């Protein structure tokens, strides 16, 4: 993040009153302000989809911590997004039980269909594809999450149904 941006932006006006109220609600049962760092990142992300540099600096200021320290926290966690994501994040399980059940082929199908690889977002902003540690549904492998929904027993048919509005490779 650039210093010039930090100087130019009035950090007091970046977060909405609702976001600040939610963060302060978390602080009620946390003894130190910086203890709400992850909660605050999640609150902001839940309303905006991701955490921009501006938001990160505003949160850091509100929690009386350095933005560098908060950045270290934000980038540690895979469910905090420091880059914009699409309307739906696809969390694709590539751990061992899904791998045994052929998830590499399924991932290829999804990449073909959506025209994206891991870390990329479709051009219509509908989906961002990310890998995720074992989703804990190994008896129904292969699995993934689309937004909040767990999708199990993935095969060509389920992929075609879920991404029905996507033509093969149309996004490339």
């Amino acid at each position, binding site marked *: 993040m650039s210093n010039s941006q930090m100087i130019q932006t009035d950090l007091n006006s970046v977060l909405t009153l609702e976001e600040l109220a939610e963060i302060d609600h978390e602080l009620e049962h946390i003894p130190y302000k910086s*203890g709400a760092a*992850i909660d605050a990142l999640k609150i902001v992300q839940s309303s905006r989809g991701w955490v921009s540099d501006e938001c990160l600096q505003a949160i850091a200021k509100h929690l009386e911590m350095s933005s560098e320290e908060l950045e270290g*926290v934000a980038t540690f966690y895979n*469910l905090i997004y420091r880059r914009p994501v699409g309307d739906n994040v696809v969390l694709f399980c590539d*751990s*061992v039980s899904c791998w*045994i059940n052929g998830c590499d082929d399924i991932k290829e199908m999804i990449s073909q269909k959506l025209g994206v690889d891991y870390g990329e977002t479709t051009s219509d902003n509908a989906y961002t594809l990310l890998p995720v*540690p074992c989703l*804990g549904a190994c008896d129904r492998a292969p699995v993934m999450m689309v937004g909040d929904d767990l999708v199990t027993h993935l095969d060509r048919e389920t992929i075609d149904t879920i991404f029905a509005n996507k033509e093969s490779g149309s996004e490339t």
Partner: protein
Amino acid sequence: MEKVLTRNISPGKAPTDIAAYEANGGYSALRKAMTVMSPDDCRQVISDSNLRGRGGAGFPTGMKWSFVPMGDKCSPGHKYLVCNADEMEPGTFKDRLLMEFDPHQLIEGMILSAYCIGADISYIFIRGEYVVAIERLRAALADCYARGYLGENILGSGYKLEMYVHPSAGRYICGEETALINALEGKRANPRAKPPFPQVSGLWGRPTIVNNVETLCNIPHIIDRGADWFKGLGVGEDAGTKLFGVSGRVKNPGCWELPMGTSVREILEDHAGGMQDGLQLKGFLPGGGSTDFLTRDHLDLAMDYNVIGKAGSRMGTGTMIILDDKTCPVGMVLNLIRFFAHESCGFCTPCRDGLPWSRQVLEDIENGRGKKEDLDTLEYQIKYIGAIGNTHCALAPGAMEPLQSALKYFREDFEHHISGRACPYRSVGGS
């Protein structure tokens, strides 16, 4: 067999709400504890029951609790009970079931456990992807507050407890209890140096107990029915029942509650239905991705902590991952090492730099670029990364477990990759 942990859970049955939970005896253990049992009484029953932690390490729960300073020995301030619901060990899918389908059992277990150690604040630290479980636990907590099972003066006993559901922001390492505590404090989830142990100085520097979901779900039943009853449930050395799971290419993958000490063969053949047609069992990880492979020679072993330990592996989470004869063992180990390398917190060098090195060597072998001396390199890595004490926490040594046992049992497969300059399984569709 008597169902204990899953007595309110059946395939196709709706999740258990508070009315159904109470109708089947739920919260009677809490009433018993709040009316006629002191925290000391309750702790004694848990110690006597020989309950061992179900998160993977199998540490005796009563002993873990015994390190928490009690009464005058504890400085004034909060004490914490934390439920580790961060189920992320590759191949593990048991806590999800318990939380989604019987959230009150976990909550009752937590209230009782908090009472045992004198905690006044408790957290359910749950992975963010468990959206359904988070929703159901939050609804269940609201019901508990409404009925006076949580909050001030629980059931008129004078005991006070607050409970929060805390969804995590990700990362496998949060399952390590001191990393989990750092995550709860809003920090990067690097594990802490021990000592001090969390029982003495954990969350916000205060005494803290972290227990796995399944461990906590056992507590109401033990308080209700006693230590001897619990010990009688196991068919081997260990007490109680256990959720055992099987994933991989078997006919009927799933998760079942069975007596502790049930044989691997019974779990695999009777419950998981055996291997899918055309496949043979080649090996299995008995309890998640960071346990050593066992083979067909170990099918008649009892799933007990010590029995599996003596065979050179760990019972871990009790959820087995099956390797069949048409899936490449090198590819499977590569998948696991890639996972652990990716999930390293980056704090200590053997883990941060060692695991990617192992991954690189395995990638070379799997992709036909392996050299004979690569096997020596892997042995060297196992020796240094795998030794407890060389690393800051157990992640990297855990990662070495499937690798070292794969080299022991499936060495020919590694050698064939190197001599044939290709993965011999690719043509048969295993990987």
